[in-house]
């Protein structure tokens, strides 16, 4: 089972929950705005503590309220593309990209730069990037951190059509060649259908 997620958490008066066991390479998480998709990613990444449940990915148990396991976020090796990007404002793009790099990274930096088309931005500060440029840098940072799995929160928002296709192909490569489990949030059904072997729709609670 690449994914075995069972999560429950109360947040501001509503309950956010997901039950999903699947041997999928890429799960697309869809659902209306505010249903809790980002919160689910935060729980899987170790940034938001579930009230109960467990998180198992690729056989690794990252969290289990029953047995008290709760691996800190820095040991979960998630490649997390945040919905709000969170580029480090005081570092140039190259330092942002290299921040999480580990020696055992399977993706080469040159590849990622080429696919994302950000090679010319390496010496820029994040505050000078356009929306789509920042989005692509954030994707690059997540990919280059030698992750064991990927969490991608609407990765193609703000990306133009031409780049879109290249990034989709990059994600497919990561999925197929590197075989990284991917949890993928999107509002675009086409995207979901193209990429995912499992689509999970979070119901409006």
């Amino acid at each position, binding site marked *: 089972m690449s994914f075995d997620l069972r999560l429950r958490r109360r947040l501001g008066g509503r309950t956010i929950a997901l039950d999903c066991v699947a041997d999928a390479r890429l799960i697309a998480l869809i659902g209306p705005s505010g249903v809790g998709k980002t919160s689910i990613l935060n729980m899987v990444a170790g940034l938001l503590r579930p009230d109960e449940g467990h998180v198992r990915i690729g056989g690794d148990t990252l969290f289990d309220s029953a047995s008290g396991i709760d691996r800190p976020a820095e040991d979960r090796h998630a490649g997390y593309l*945040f919905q709000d990007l969170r580029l480090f404002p*005081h570092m140039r793009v190259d330092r942002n990209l290299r*921040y*999480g790099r580990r020696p055992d990274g399977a993706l080469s930096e040159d590849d990622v730069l080429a696919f994302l088309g950000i090679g010319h931005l390496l010496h820029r500060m994040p505050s000078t990037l356009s929306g789509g440029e920042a989005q692509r840098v954030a994707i690059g940072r997540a990919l280059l951190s030698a992750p064991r799995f990927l969490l991608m929160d609407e990765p193609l928002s703000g990306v133009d059509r031409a780049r879109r296709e290249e990034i989709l192909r990059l994600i497919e490569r990561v999925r197929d060649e590197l075989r990284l489990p991917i949890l993928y949030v999107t509002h675009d059904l086409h995207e979901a259908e193209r990429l995912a072997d499992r689509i999970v729709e979070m119901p409006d609670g």
Partner: protein
Amino acid sequence: MDFSLSPQDWTVIGLSLKVSLVAVATMLPIAFALAWILARWRFPGKLLLDALVHLPLVVPPVVTGWLLLLLFGINGPIGSRLDQWFGVTLLFRWTGAALAAAIMAMPLMVRAMRLSIESVDLRLEQAAQTLGASPLRRFLSISLPLSLPGIFAGAMLGFARSIGEFGATITFVSDIPGETRTLPIAIYAALQVPGAEAAVSRFAIISVLLSLGALLISEILARRATRGRMSYVL
């Protein structure tokens, strides 16, 4: 006004610089730790710690000096041990003057740093965490550089305060030429003599020049450290 400086004057200036720099350098990590604790931690005695940090600001400097004398004097609880164990005494030493200056500078340094630490976006630290950064690395690469404005402001305030510190210093370590006679102490001594206004003004101007230099340096460092970060598309 006559601005030629005697060798004694140069001694006073050098000593003031030494005392202030040592005070700020020593207090910097301590103040940052205190600021961090006050900004980030939550614990029962927090308000008390906060009050303690403000103490040297609230209590007149002479009283602070007097408390230092009680604590670090030959018979004081700390002073006697320092003497016994390390053969060190701070009394009448420039190190004592630096201690007094550091204590007086502490509340200003802590407050400035705390303000900056509190304005660091915690979401960035979370991002670093998912990228595998240990708490120490998160601190060094995210929190610390993002609170640099407060660190510079704190160091600058602390240095200025140290350069101006008088009451606690004279009460604790007295006025020993070449050892504890800093600029304010020289100024005060000059003020005791009728008609010494010229000497007072001279020393006061030197103090101001020193701090102006420190101000300049801190502004330049701060600008360099935050360059690019704030340049929104305007």
